[in-house]
């Protein structure tokens, strides 16, 4: 009897909370449940050691990101190193498998996705950033009822619009799936879905340790984080094009 009462009470509470959700309330709960907005805003760098796999093929990687948008990915294959990096203005890579053992610069058009990738969550101060965020309704993902939130990056500024759909678990207010669209090439506009899970606490922030990218219902790439280090001091030099 008591149990039932509790359930009713809980469902009632849940019910009321569902009614009045605005997109900002959902985002507020998201930040609150994952460590607090202040902590998120204080994030200065992130280093991830993990494993990347594609159709069962595994490659270890280290991804280092420094605010606002410096980033570097190191991958080891049979003792050989592949690097892909962006120093805030210029992207480059070192990939012996693509021919040549010297680093090469990446043309701007092909580096635009790197250039747009920021360490800070795009939902933080999204209005200031010129992004548009809309609650499109509720939809089920992986058997979970989700808020479907459309993010159009740069809608209100001069940069190219980039649309993504984020599905926030409506019980826990964390994203569990993100839809993005290819931005160039013959498959431009084709959707990919990134499923995120294995949220774990790192220095007070909830970070998803697992991501799986699917296209056409097929798994394309899986990322598993082994270790995440936050706010460690990172030299700018590692992002820069190596001087000979």
């Amino acid at each position: 009897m008591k149990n039932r009462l509790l359930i009713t009470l809980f469902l009632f509470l849940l019910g009321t909370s569902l009614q009045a959700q605005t997109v900002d309330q959902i985002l507020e709960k998201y930040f609150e449940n994952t460590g607090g907005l202040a902590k998120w805003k204080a994030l200065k760098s992130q280093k991830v050691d993990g494993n990347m796999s594609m159709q069962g093929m595994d490659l270890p990687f280290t991804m280092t990101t420094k605010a606002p948008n410096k980033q570097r990915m190191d991958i080891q294959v049979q003792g050989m190193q592949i690097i892909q990096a962006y120093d805030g203005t210029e992207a480059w890579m070192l990939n012996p498998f693509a021919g040549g053992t010297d680093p090469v610069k990446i043309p701007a058009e092909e580096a635009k996705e790197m250039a747009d990738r920021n360490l800070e969550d795009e939902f933080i101060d999204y209005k200031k950033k010129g992004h548009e965020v809309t609650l499109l309704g509720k939809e089920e993902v992986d058997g979970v009822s989700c808020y479907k939130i459309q993010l159009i990056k740069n809608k209100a500024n001069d940069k190219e619009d980039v649309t993504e759909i984020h599905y926030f678990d409506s019980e826990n207010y964390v994203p569990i799936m993100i839809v993005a669209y290819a931005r160039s090439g013959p498959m431009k506009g084709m959707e990919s879905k990134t499923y995120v899970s294995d949220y774990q606490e790192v220095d007070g922030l909830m970070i998803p340790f697992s991501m799986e990218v699917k296209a056409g219902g097929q798994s394309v790439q899986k990322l598993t984080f082994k270790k995440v280090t936050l706010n460690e001091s990172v030299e700018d030099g590692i992002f820069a094009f190596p001087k000979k």
Partner: protein
Amino acid sequence: MKKIKLLLFSCLVAWQAEAQNELSGKAILGDLRARSIGPATMSGRITDIDVVASKPEVIYVGSAGGGVWKSVSAGTTFRPVFDEHTMSIGKVTIDQSNPETVWVGTGESWVRNSVAIGTGLYKTTNGGTSWEFVGLKDSQHISDILVHPKDGNIVYVGVQGHLWGPNQERGVFKTSDGGKTWTKVLYIDENTGCADMDIDPKNPDVIYAAMWSHRRYPDFFDSGFTGTSGLYKSIDGGKTWNKIHNGLPTAKLGRIGIAVAPSNPMVLYASIEAEGTQNKGLYKSTDAGASWKKVNSDFSNTVRPFYFSRITVDPLNENNLVKCAYIPIISTDGGSKFRSMGSPHADLHAAWIDHRNSNHIILGTDGGIYESFDQGYSFRMWPNLPVGQFYHVTVDNDKPYNIYGGLQDNGSWYGPSQKAGGITNSDWLNSLYGDGFNSHRHPTDKDIIYSEYQGGGITRVNKKTGVAKSIKPLPEKDDPKLRFNWNTPLVQSPSKADRIYVSAQFLYMSDDRGDTWKKISPDLTTNDPKRQRQNSSGGVSIDNSTAENNATIYAVAESPLDEKIIWVGTDDGFVQVTENQGLTWSNLTKTIAGLPSGNWCSYVEPGHFDKRTAYVTFDNHRNGDMKPYIYKTTDLGKTWTSLVTPEIEGHVYVIREDLINPNLLFAGTEFGLYVSTNGGKQWSRFENNLPKVAVHDLVIHPREHDLVIATHGRGIYIIDDLTPLRQVTPEVLAKTIHFFDIKPTVLNDPGLSGRNPSPGDDQFYGQNPNTQAKIVYFMNKRHTFGKMSIEVYDQNNKLIREIPAGKSAGINVVQMTTNYNRPRIPPSETRESIGGSIFGPSLAAGTYKVKVIKGKEEFNTTFTLTYPEDSPYTLEDRKIKQDAALRMYTLCEDLAYIYDAQLDLLKQAVSVKDKNPKLTKTLNPFIKEIEDQNAMIVFKGGDFYVATEERMTERVAELYGSINSYPGKPGQSQLDRVKGLEDEVAAVRKKFDELKGPKLEKLNSALSKSNLNALKVKSEDEFKSSADQTGGTGQQLNQLLDFLLIR
């Protein structure tokens, strides 16, 4: 603090999940995925083409049943952009002033008997990435969309309206606010829709609209119908309209096509269907419609107007025009003379002429797209649009099995369910011409295929000779004329290999492959004379193609449990059954409560577990009723239960009962595939990689347990391995995690596909089944918080790999490559050595242990690998290979460690030397020795391509690769060489032992005298934990690297 809050929150959530109950059906289906195998070889009916004028490499194609496709490479590659919406496309129009905006009107306007309905108008503003529904929901068929050339907010839509009944949402609609609001600006009556429009590009307030009164019935077509067809013109943006018939025939009119010459809008062309042969043909106006003159009445200008009426005028030249027709034709003299454009597939529906080059023409036909650069003298087909419309599908029992089926206007074809390198166009072979329907192979005679063309053209084809023998049942003395449906049943008996059934109004059975027929029923239809008007069908133009043959038997099936029980359904509403092979028949129609009379029986499916059970579906859409009808009987038709639930959308073409689990049902409707795991109490649409496409037939492969799906617009799809779905029960659904028993994974031996590795990008490849090992489980709740992963162990409990787990609620399919991790090697800059070492040794056949670790809980299961049955490699040979490969594997790993440990010592020594120059003399010999040794181990300084040299790593890795890549016994020379290399590596190991032993000891004591720390040797364990090791195959590595490269 936050943590506590989080914890509390998740507790509440967990508790609430228990309070909640079932997962949705969509969630249960989870990771199960349909794969598309095309084919694209015969493509399918194209209904419209539009091209971005300012960027002509950007092309949109609308298809009759396969949605909208977009190319950004002038047709080299395509991708579907409309898969979440209705697949029958009437019109695609680009807003040329803002070409990221495209309008799509659903519901084809070429309203043949098999045409599918639409669900209104859609718009994208981002080049097809997402679409918004913008109204006209009840239009069903949309013929045209005109966008104002300067103001994209002004759009006119020609709504043809319902085909199978009256409706009011038809005529010309206009929006001036980009689709937010619509005004019906031209409306005649509930039977008359708009069949075509055009606009004066120089004065866009001038609009022409062809209005068409027409109606279809299951047994009759009437073009012209109420006599209200006509050609209209507005000069004020649709506010007012006038009939422009001066010079047009006064006789009753049918369908009209209208086109303005863009280069001179005074010139108009109209294709006119009218009563009286002398009245039909192409008319021309040179005064913007004030008067008309007939200019041509060739066959192609008068034939079948409901299917071909469109005219396309060259934007550069008012005298060049293409007329859509059975045989496509073109005129270059203003319409007085035409020549045919021969090589494209028959039945042209859409044409585009380049606004920069009159010789460049793109045609959309019943068989795909054709492109000409010489004004229609020669064409190339675009081989990459898999939009075929299958009516039926069957499978044989070959390994791998083949798939057989017939398509709208594309004959009968068969092709493999899988093929190394992907299923290509040339893997599909044609077994018969005409429209294709039922087609199947003889169950035991591999050379015999039964195929048919429309209206009962039954044939038996010998694959060896390619010759087809007509085996159509013929009337006996005193028989009435036989009535064969357009899509005539041609059915294999499950009990006798040589027995087939064919039906007209009577059911025929043959026990000798169709050479002799026995009539085993009376007329099983209504035999209603009012339903037998096919000779006069067509309205203003007679159109007796057999498409309207009615009062025929449409569905036939022999019970797999009792050859005497045969179920029959007719297109005029009857379901009949015999229990004595046709001696007597019972008409069951009246026992189905609530079934509208005259409802077309689309499928009969006898039960596989109980001979008194059967399922029937009805498709009443030809009477204007689009509702689903599915019934089940368990008492030979005395009583019926409806299996329809609100989840099912669209009229039903097919139902199938699973061969193992009677509660597992599959239904195909106009809007997709539906699955029920509880005997029809609840249905879910199958969405994973299967578009919302019409599903006309289904078959379950009895050996492979695959569901083969015949779509009417996107070719064939396959859901591989239904075994997990079969095991879904209420008990399973209640479990935290449940592992499904699945069939063992066959270890495919590596090999080349034999295909051209660089065929270009315009090829279509049908997807193959996934050949990785699978771990399939159900979870009742998604895993979002905390770690979840899977560990896989071999028979010796050695951990092979840790892999990411599937996290979704419902069915998860986790895949793992069937290799051990590949060996580490020293960092070589030689392609060959890396290539050799990229493949890990393949796992042996056997059972592997799987541990799913979810937070603190562990769940255990296994998977099994087997070798292919018909492999040329014996188990013994495989074992010799495996031993040799593992020996070479060890050598790779040894070298990798020795090299790395020596390098580590070298770095330490150099660092000491740098800080203590006085020790240079002591350290130098040690340093030199390491450098020399490492230089023996691996070649450095290459360019990873042709600047290479060979050292020990290169030799070892290459031999490892050549032994490992062959599944059978290595050659004796290879085995001898293994031994030789083992000796060489042993020598390296010996030197290393000396180095890290006595030599290092000596050095360290010298260092100690200088109060310096001793150099340390990295242990093998340290090395292995620092140098990550990776699994997979070279092909996958290449794909991965390809993926990582920013392109």
